[in-house]
């Protein structure tokens, strides 16, 4: 674990358990856990500048795995998209777009999707693309399970928090097909930032163009670079091709 004090200084620690005998082991509730940073007294902790309310994250190493196609790290949900957002801007920097492109990173997704509301109010988008990270379900061998590492960008046809704009989703799939970009259908019973983005104000067509990862929400999640590249290629093609006419069509899809 990493504890961060108000000055931004970080302290490594670990969660201390009682004897972890397999027979007696049970899952401890998060708010009953203790983090040991090697201090021996409350005073020592105070001296380190650590206060009530300071943040603690699960630490994890960034490591490119075996054949160089997959990467292990904490927080792939949703740091990959922060990188991808920057790379999108980089890729599009000399290209003239028909749209004003706002690339942003939203806060407080993990506590009930709070940041997406003010962000949407700030920008008031005509169209939105959400780049989030979803659980891969490819280790049980169930054929109809969704989310397989390496199978490409996710074409999300249902999310608990948003029904897709079907025309826009089909548009993503068509772009993938014609550009030979790998894509896979996905559905999610969790919620994501699209929840508020698509239904704030008078609504806006919202596309989810996401990737999957194994071990999401642990410190050792794994993504496949090819999925990342597929999402990047697909989103670039979508953004380059957008204009008022297309966006109006997406808005009118249910009319």
């Amino acid at each position: 674990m990493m504890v961060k004090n108000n000055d931004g200084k970080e302290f490594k620690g670990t969660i201390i358990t009682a004897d972890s005998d397999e027979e007696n082991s049970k899952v401890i509730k998060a708010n009953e856990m203790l983090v040991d940073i090697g201090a021996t007294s409350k005073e020592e902790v105070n001296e380190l500048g650590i206060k009530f309310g300071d943040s603690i994250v699960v630490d994890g190493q960034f490591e490119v795995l075996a054949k160089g196609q997959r990467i292990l790290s904490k927080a792939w949900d949703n740091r990959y998209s922060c990188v991808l957002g920057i790379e999108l801007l980089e890729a599009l920097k000399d290209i003239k777009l028909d749209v004003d492109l706002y690339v942003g990173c939203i806060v407080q997704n993990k506590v009930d999707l709070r940041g997406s509301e003010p962000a949407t109010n700030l920008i008031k988008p005509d169209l939105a693309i959400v780049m989030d990270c979803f659980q891969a379900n490819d280790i049980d061998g169930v054929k109809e399970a969704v989310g397989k590492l390496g199978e490409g960008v996710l074409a999300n046809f249902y999310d608990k928090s948003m029904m897709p704009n079907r025309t826009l989703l089909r548009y993503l799939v068509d772009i993938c097909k014609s550009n030979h970009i790998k894509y896979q259908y996905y559905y999610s019973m969790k919620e994501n930032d699209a929840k508020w983005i698509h239904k704030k104000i008078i609504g806006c067509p919202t596309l989810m163009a996401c990737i999957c990862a194994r071990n999401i929400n642990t410190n050792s999640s794994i993504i496949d670079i090819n999925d990342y590249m597929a999402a990047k290629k697909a989103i670039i093609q979508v953004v380059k091709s957008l204009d008022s006419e297309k966006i109006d069509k997406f808005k009118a899809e249910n009319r």
Partner: protein
Amino acid sequence: MENVDLQMLKELSEADGISGCEKEVSRVVKKYFKKYADEILYDNLGSIIGLKKGKENGPKIMISGHMDEVGFIVRDIDDNGYIKLLPIGRWWGHDLPSQEMVITTSTGAKIYGVVGTRPPHGMTRAEEEKVINPIDLFIDLGVKTKEEVQNLGIQVGDMITPNVKFSVMNNPEYLMGKAWDDRIGVAVGIDVLKELQGIDHDANIYVAATVQEEVGIRGARTAAHLINPDIAFALDVTGAKDTPFDKGETKLGGGVIISVLDGMTLGNKGLLNKFEKICEGLGLDINYNSIPEGGTDAGNIHKTFCGIVTMTLSIPTRYMHSPRLVISRKDYIQTVKALAEFCKGMNIELLKDIKGANR
């Protein structure tokens, strides 16, 4: 209005439109809005709004019924051509095995099939008594392979709805069809506009046929944002309790049902009182509903902007969220009458009175 427009009800009931895919319903609504409304507006999720204008400074009244019905989407196509389902909205598994369903492809083609079931022979008692989870069901299209299904134009994500025709029942007061939840609410809105034809009124009436109620009352937000009304009525169905399965007061043919509260909204007191007086004045039958769970479009309308004076009117229905629902014309006709009368008489002064009831 003594006669019910059966053709309109038939078209509304039979149109296929699940949450997020309401185009067919929207087009039916547009056809009637063109007859009875001065202007048609849309939000960006697909809610369609018909405006009948009053005075420029007249109060804005929003009447909201949702277009989307509960249904399914194609979750997966297996190698033998069986369609796996993903429910959109809430379904009881008991209502589904052996039902005829229709899949609507991206080109609008309709492909028919049947939800599979199991023969009773060889089932254990435990299996017989277990209700199958809707997500575990499948549709048999009568094909041999996945390829055949794809050649029919079916894709993952396509809409699936019950294949049910509208009918007038043996006592013509009763009407059976799919999706009375909430096409009957939409019908009320259209008929209110019709009732107001040729009549001058202060209020500007916005009849909103909203989208995506069944998945979280989403279109009501965007439509309310677009309209920014002074007063809003949500029209939605409520469960009738007059069958051998149920116990309770709500019955078909009881007349107007004023919803005092539900799980998301407390009906505005001033508005409830005013509406009740109108019903009394017309000699209508009045009932009250208070169900501490669930919600209607009112749930997300009443908290918009600085708050909107809102209440829900309920139309009772049997067999909600199943392929075949049964309603009574009488409840529908009385609701339209009361609502139209309210709209005729609403003005700035009365709006002040209503708002003032809580101050």
